[in-house]
C-alpha cells in the first residue's frame, strides 16, 4: 500500500466518511482516490480545488495565510479539505453523521505527510 493509499485508508475508516481522495489543487485532477459508490471523485477534485483556490485569494485579501483546513457544510453532508505540500490536497466527502472532529485530526495528520 502506498503512503497515499494508507492516508486515504485511515480517513475512510472514520464513521460517516463516504470517500476520500488526493487531488492536485491547481489542476483539480484526481491523484488517488478511495470512494464509495455515488461519490463523483472527478467532480470532488475539480470543485474542491477551485474552492480552495478561491479561499486562498480571500485569505490573502484578508491579510492571512492560506487555509490549512476547510469544511464546506451542506444540507446533507460536508466536504472536508486539507491542503498538503507540493500542491496536493486531501479531500473527504462526509455525511451529516460523520465524526468531524476525528476526521479533521486524521486529515491534518495525513495532509502533513502528503507529497
Amino acid at each position, binding site marked *: 500500500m502506498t503512503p497515499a493509499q494508507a492516508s486515504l485508508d485511515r480517513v475512510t475508516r472514520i464513521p460517516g466518511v463516504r470517500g476520500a481522495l488526493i*487531488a*492536485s489543487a*491547481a*489542476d*483539480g*485532477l484526481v491523484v488517488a482516490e478511495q470512494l464509495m459508490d455515488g461519490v463523483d471523485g*472527478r*467532480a470532488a*477534485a*475539480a*470543485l474542491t*480545488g*477551485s474552492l480552495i*483556490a478561491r479561499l486562498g485569494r480571500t485569505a490573502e485579501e484578508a491579510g492571512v495565510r492560506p487555509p490549512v483546513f476547510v469544511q464546506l457544510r451542506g444540507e446533507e453532508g460536508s466536504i472536508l479539505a486539507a491542503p498538503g505540500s507540493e500542491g496536493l490536497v486531501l479531500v473527504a466527502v462526509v455525511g451529516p453523521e460523520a465524526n468531524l472532529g476525528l476526521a479533521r485530526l486524521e486529515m491534518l495528520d495525513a495532509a502533513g505527510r502528503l507529497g
Partner: protein
Amino acid sequence: MRALEPWVEAPLQSFLAESSARLTLLMTTSGQVVAQHGFGRSLDVMTAAALGAGIVASTEELARLMGAPRFEALVHHGARQSCMLSAFVTPRGRWIGLVVFGQETSVGIVQLFFDQMVRQLADAAPREQAPTPKLAENFEHDLDASLRALFGR
C-alpha cells in the same frame, strides 16, 4: 457566444458560465464550425477549427498506431493559458471541442463541465434526420453564411 443551431446554445452557455473558458469552439471532425465564443475574427475561427481538427486527427492516428483506444482529451498547458481539445459523439455525428482557459479556472473544472455539456447536447439534439451532405459548389456559400451567423452579421 454564437451557434449555428439553437439547441446548442443552452448547453454551451452553461459550459461557459461554469468553466470560465476564455475561448470555445465546437466543430465537426471535418472542421465545420458549429458554435464559438470569444473569437474576434472569422479568420481566427477558421484557422483554429482547421488546426484543431488536424490535431485531433493526428492524435487519433497515433492512438491507432499504439493499439490504444482513442484519446478522450488532449490538454496543452501554457504559462498563462491552456488549451483542451476533445472529440465527442453527438446525435449529429462526431464533433470536436476546442477550449482555451486561463489561471482563473482549472483543467479539472473545464473537463468536468465539458462532459456535462456533452451530455446536455446529447439530450438537446433534435431527433430528426441528419442533414444531407452538401454539394461542393454550395460549400463555400454555406461556409460564408455560417461565419456570418457566428459573428452576428
